[in-house]
């Protein structure tokens, strides 16, 4: 008998989509209990269009080929002391932020997609989530392996997962993902697959990976190239999720819009760390944060939201605020870390003259007016032997958990404060966006584990900040923190390079 040829779509349907069945012996809602409480209406899961049709045998094959190449590079990198080829030892600090702040989010994504990969009633959506779950596990593990060699030669990498659970500024990324995972399964997908992976990923993934390419970091950039095809799959899932939800029922539109508004703002706040990384931490610059924002959000995002207008979806709320923020946010964020550099798990520094000039050129409207004078003052104080650290602990925004250092965007000399009262308690926010998110779901955000509050309440050891850093964060105080000048990282680098 001659077998008929099957096209990919039919083959995938037969091999995969038809595996599930209607229950006869149990209530199917007991097996998939979380589909309704968010108010999302799914009328027909069979309308799900598989964003990619990858069977497991093909997946094993492609991914194993990629891993083989990737690990060959890691081995060569370690064998040849590849860390000596980075542009400047300051660069390693961008990687410390990546391993302590971003890699644990890949792990949370693995967990979040395992949850949705178990809970969605539609087999197509479920399996797409499962595929992403295992990809995300790949990413966290290959990142740990890519950084493993750096950890042997630089400080600040060594206790990344312990730090992620505890350190004050790492509660920004951690709370972001905790927020998504603790939400319902549909909000999780809108948050991570759409708002993050589809709309904002080029502003997270690409800056770090391009930064690696520009700064001689072969291990990380090879990981980046290797993960690219995974990321492309994740982005197609993000787009399918949005279209599917919007096409299933018109009642879904306002719910989805609210989630887009929320997660766009959550995402931009998280990305302020990337902004400062791009503008201040990369010795060889890729592009300015402002340029990245214009290309990847204003242009690409703008046309995406034009496409979505036919479903009744508009640009995220406060997108116009971000147009002003792009001029300020990286400068304000790095200034916060420079101030609290004694309590950070990576090194901080004052930009060089050449870097100050680059910032002036890239930010003609704001840098010379507001920020250059600060750095020149810091420089002068440092030269006088008075490198300053802010000895206090900052107030944190109760939503994004970033220290309250961002200003009003129309008046960059005025710190922005917003507040609300809930159940007799007052809560503080850095922006209208964060305020609105809290007010919409106060019972969620009153739970925030705010690191500074926790320190003051005595839940992180102490009594002094240094005790917290040493005993609770397990930092090697004097090695992991403080300015890069005089750090063991710098001393070792100079010794390797034969610089006195």
């Amino acid at each position, binding site marked *: *008998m001659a*077998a*008929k040829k099957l096209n990919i779509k039919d083959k995938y349907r*037969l*091999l*995969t989509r*038809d*595996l599930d*069945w209607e229950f*006869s*012996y*149990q209530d199917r809602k007991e*097996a998939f209990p*979380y589909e309704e409480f968010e108010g999302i209406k799914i009328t027909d899961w069979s309308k799900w269009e598989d964003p990619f049709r990858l069977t*497991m*045998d093909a*997946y*094993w*094959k492609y991914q*194993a080929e990629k*891993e*083989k190449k990737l*690990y060959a590079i890691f081995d060569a990198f370690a064998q040849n*002391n590849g860390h*000596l080829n980075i542009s400047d030892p300051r660069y390693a600090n961008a990687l410390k932020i990546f391993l302590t702040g971003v890699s*644990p989010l890949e*792990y949370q994504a693995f*967990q979040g997609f395992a*949850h949705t*990969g*178990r809970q969605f009633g539609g*087999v197509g959506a*479920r*399996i797409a989530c*499962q595929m992403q*779950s*295992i990809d995300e*596990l790949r990413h*966290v*593990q*290959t990142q740990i392996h890519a950084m493993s060699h750096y950890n*042997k*030669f630089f*400080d600040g*990498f*060594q206790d990344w*997962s312990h730090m992620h659970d*505890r350190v004050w500024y790492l*509660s920004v990324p951690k709370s972001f993902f*905790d*927020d998504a*995972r*603790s939400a*319902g*399964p549909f909000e999780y997908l809108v948050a991570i697959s759409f708002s993050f992976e589809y709309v904002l990923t080029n502003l997270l993934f690409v800056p770090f990976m391009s930064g690696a390419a520009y700064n001689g970091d072969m291990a990380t950039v090879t990981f980046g190239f290797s993960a690219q095809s995974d990321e492309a799959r994740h982005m197609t899932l993000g787009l399918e999720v949005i279209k599917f939800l919007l096409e299933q029922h018109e009642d879904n539109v306002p719910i989805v819009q609210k989630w887009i508004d929320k997660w766009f703002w959550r995402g931009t706040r998280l990305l302020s760390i990337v902004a400062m990384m791009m503008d201040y931490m990369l010795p060889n610059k890729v592009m300015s944060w402002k340029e990245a924002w214009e290309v990847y959000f204003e242009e690409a995002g703008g046309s995406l939201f034009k496409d979505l207008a036919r479903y009744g979806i508009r640009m995220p709320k406060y997108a116009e605020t971000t147009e002003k923020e792009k001029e300020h946010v990286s400068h304000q964020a790095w200034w916060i870390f420079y101030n609290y550099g004694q309590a950070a798990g990576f090194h901080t520094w004052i930009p060089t003259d050449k870097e100050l000039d680059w910032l002036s050129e890239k930010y003609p409207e704001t840098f010379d007016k507001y920020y250059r004078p600060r750095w020149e003052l810091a420089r002068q104080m440092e030269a006088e032997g008075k490198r300053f650290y802010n000895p206090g602990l900052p107030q944190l925004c109760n939503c994004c958990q970033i220290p309250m250092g961002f200003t009003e965007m129309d008046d960059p000399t005025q710190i922005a404060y917003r507040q609300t009262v809930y159940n007799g308690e007052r809560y503080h926010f850095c922006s209208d966006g964060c305020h609105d998110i809290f007010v919409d779901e106060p019972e*969620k955000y009153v739970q925030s*584990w705010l690191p500074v509050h*926790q320190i003051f309440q005595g839940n992180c050891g102490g009594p002094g900040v240094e005790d917290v850093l040493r005993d609770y964060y*397990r930092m090697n105080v004097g090695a992991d923190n403080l300015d890069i000048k005089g750090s*063991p990282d710098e001393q070792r680098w100079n010794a390797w390079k034969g610089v006195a």
Partner: protein
Amino acid sequence: MTIEIKTSTLEPVRQTYANIARRFGDKPATRYQEATYDVQAETNFHYRPLWQPQHELNDKGRTAIQMEDWYAFRDPRQYYYGAYVGQRARMQENAENNYAFFEKRNLADRLGDGIRAGLIRFLVPLRHVEHAANLNNMYGTAYGYGTAITQAMLYDGMDRLGIAQYFSRIGLILDGNSGEALIEAKRAWMEDPLWQGLRALCEETLVTRDWFELFVAQDLVLDSLIGQLVYDQYDAWLADNGGQDVAMLTEFMQEWRKDRTRWVDAVLKTAAAESDDNRALLRDWAAKWRGKAAEALSPLAREMLGEEALEQALAELEKRMAKAGIN
């Protein structure tokens, strides 16, 4: 003779990450160790899940099993992602060659009508069983605790999807890609009284809440019994009755079964050795699901293989339970 290339050696500040050094000493670590231990967040979760406010996001309390250290569940295969996909890629390459050979030589045509009908009735419906197994292992992945066991459950879950797809391909080989064998097998799964016990049991596993109990039900009891019936006894029956070529199509599953049995047995042994309370729980769960599974599989085993078949499968399960100390 050896040749020696001179390289410059730099003295590292430390040999591995601090969490690995705390567990194993500051010495060069394996990739499995660095990718596995302490990777999952442990504390200071910000918000309770809206979908399960009685628990933290990562919570040891989603099973009654208690462990001093959830990273005691070291995978004897030491699979991290790269090692796992590498191993499965080799197995699938072999399978691909087998399937290609089977199709090129039209070996399906050499199967008698009886064998072919038997395969559609007994083998192809297992794709639905594998689908439930996929979901049950995803359940452990999502709600289990500690990367050591959750990553292994994810690999097993993805394996089960792959196996469901292989069973589907067997159906397509038998029906010349018309999909009729898959429809017929699904009809059997939904309506044939032979399958209803097992289908009801699969549905019951999908509403079971304790993820470790579910691991016992699915990965020990059901898989042990079904595996013994299908991959040992039915395979032998096919070999004796002119269906030996089918083994080419199930070789992946045979190899997979050996590979993952090592892991399942190691998990059970570790959990049981931890405490008497754990051992008692595991014993109760194993007995409970053994009883249910024996009843569910009884008509199927009899029809497929004869009166003695189920006893043989149960004997193997007993042996594994004894080895883990939970009989």
